[in-house]
């Protein structure tokens, strides 16, 4: 599979909905260098289930993890997939990014399409305070059940700091 194949397929299917897309080519190997590719696309959250459905139907993706990036008034969520696994040099990382405003902090679940996403979705809920609509199990996973702070939200830093016990007094930066 080539990065153009997957990117063209997505552009044909979703067209103008894709707000950003780019391919990063990296060279690996010391004796006979070859390229490997990271593909990035950005879509509105409403299109996320359709995009993941299309990905599952066409490309048998592996979801590595969902990462978050607090940008101030919104958080970008990166769904890091890998497609084309199973063959030497066959794999391409395919990241679907969607930005979610903090004043309407919801994302649809993709666990109905890819059950393995549950761990990552539960983690995003507890660490960012986002609501994953339709999540089959919304309990805290890594944080205690009664913990309500969201440590990866930069605007809630003060609240997070209050809950951190300072073990090393001379280290002022770890909070």
């Amino acid at each position, binding site marked *: 599979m080539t990065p153009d194949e997957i990117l063209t397929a997505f552009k044909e299917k979703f067209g103008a909905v894709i707000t950003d897309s780019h391919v990063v080519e990296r060279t690996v*190997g010391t*004796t006979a260098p070859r390229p490997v590719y990271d593909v990035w696309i950005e879509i509105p959250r409403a299109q996320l289930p359709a995009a993941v459905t299309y990905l*599952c139907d066409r490309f*048998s993706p592996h979801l590595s993890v969902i990462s978050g990036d607090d940008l101030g008034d919104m958080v970008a969520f990166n769904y890091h997939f890998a497609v084309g696994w*199973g063959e030497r040099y066959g*794999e391409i990382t395919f990241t679907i990014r969607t930005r979610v405003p903090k004043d309407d902090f919801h994302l649809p679940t993709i666990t109905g399409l890819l*059950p393995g996403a549950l761990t990552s979705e539960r983690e995003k809920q507890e660490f960012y305070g986002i609501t994953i609509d339709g999540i089959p199990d919304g309990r805290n996973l890594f944080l205690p059940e009664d913990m309500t702070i969201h440590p*990866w939200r930069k605007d809630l830093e003060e609240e997070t700091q209050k809950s951190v016990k300072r073990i090393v007094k001379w280290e002022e*930066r*770890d909070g």
Partner: protein
Amino acid sequence: MDSDKINLELGCTTCTTQTTYSVPIGPVHPALKEPIQFTFRLSGERIVGVDIKPGYAHRGIEYMGMKRNLIQVLYLAERICGICSISHPLALTQAVENAAGIEVPPRAQYIRTIIGELERIHSHLLWAGVAAHELGFDTLLHLVWKVREKVMDLLEQLTGNRVDYAIPIYGGVRRDIPDEKAGLAYEALSYYKNLLQDMINAFLHDKSVAMRTSNVGVLTYDDAVALCAVGPTARASGVKKDVRQDMPYLAYADMDIRAITPEDYGKPVVGDVFDNIVVRLLEVDQSIKIIEYCLEHMPGGELTSIPKVAALLAVLKKADGEGIGRHEAPRGEVFHYIRLEAGVEAPVAWKVKAPTYSNLMSWVPKFMGDEIADIPIIAASIDPCMCCLDRATLVDQGGGEAVKLKEELVKLSREKTRRMCG
């Protein structure tokens, strides 16, 4: 893929009928690496549900990392896991190098690969010993762990440490493997090559091991794919997923590496604990060959593209971009995402994904339908980087309660072995 096959309703902390009861296991036991709590729902001896609660060892490492400069983050990453203590630095350095556009000299790529594969050998041998112990086969545990010492000694001779090797730095490595040390590595590889067949015989041709692990803790191919399983856990189910093969990096890009499945041992894929043993033992042999290739083809040249730490920090502070770093750790794919902003020393976003994170949900189908006495070996089968078979509290509908210690569970497991062996 058919998501209906996967039971996502894991919550089962309360008993609902007279015929089922719950068995909480964990979260703390000093004999195990990390704590985790399982709550099993049982019908008689059979497991009919399981709820898994990790997080007891969550140290907020990403939170801390986003307040520190990248050199300090590297130290933190090395301490995410004591066994995969080069796997996280390898993924992190690649993520940062991709984000900042830093080149890595060929010799450094080979040295990183050698240490990464030595780590795989010691990790798989550690796991094999634990698996033998959980089955009540302690002579095999002691044999395997005695054999493992050789690779630990070699790691100490090459890096100065048995764990936390402090080898990767952004742009290269911190230590060379000179010729005289390469000789030590060849000697250790020869030692393992001579022993490997004995270990395969001890594990795979032993009647009691086969009886206790065959058709136990089964993960089907479809479930492994749907649950995004990684590493030997996925490969034992026939999923040919291995970052070293799929998207080569470092010296792996110069070699013909293939994902190992039970078919490579000439047996059909079942996805049970036995297949997990097969895959890991064959991967020890694969690691030996990779290290031999690296030693024989080691390129000359520099160890790092930016030798001075102050200059490196200056380059990193100017970097602006995002990057992904992946490494096939002994337990599976380690993934790091990082975003850097020019003028900011700390990463503005950092996400770490360890293999057990991906394999967590694989436990659910693996446990279903098996017996209490199989819990220790199934829990161990994914080689978790956290687990605790500390104590179990049996709660029945009448309010009765009994505490089961880890020792009692292991005893149950051993009794089953004896029973099956007649």
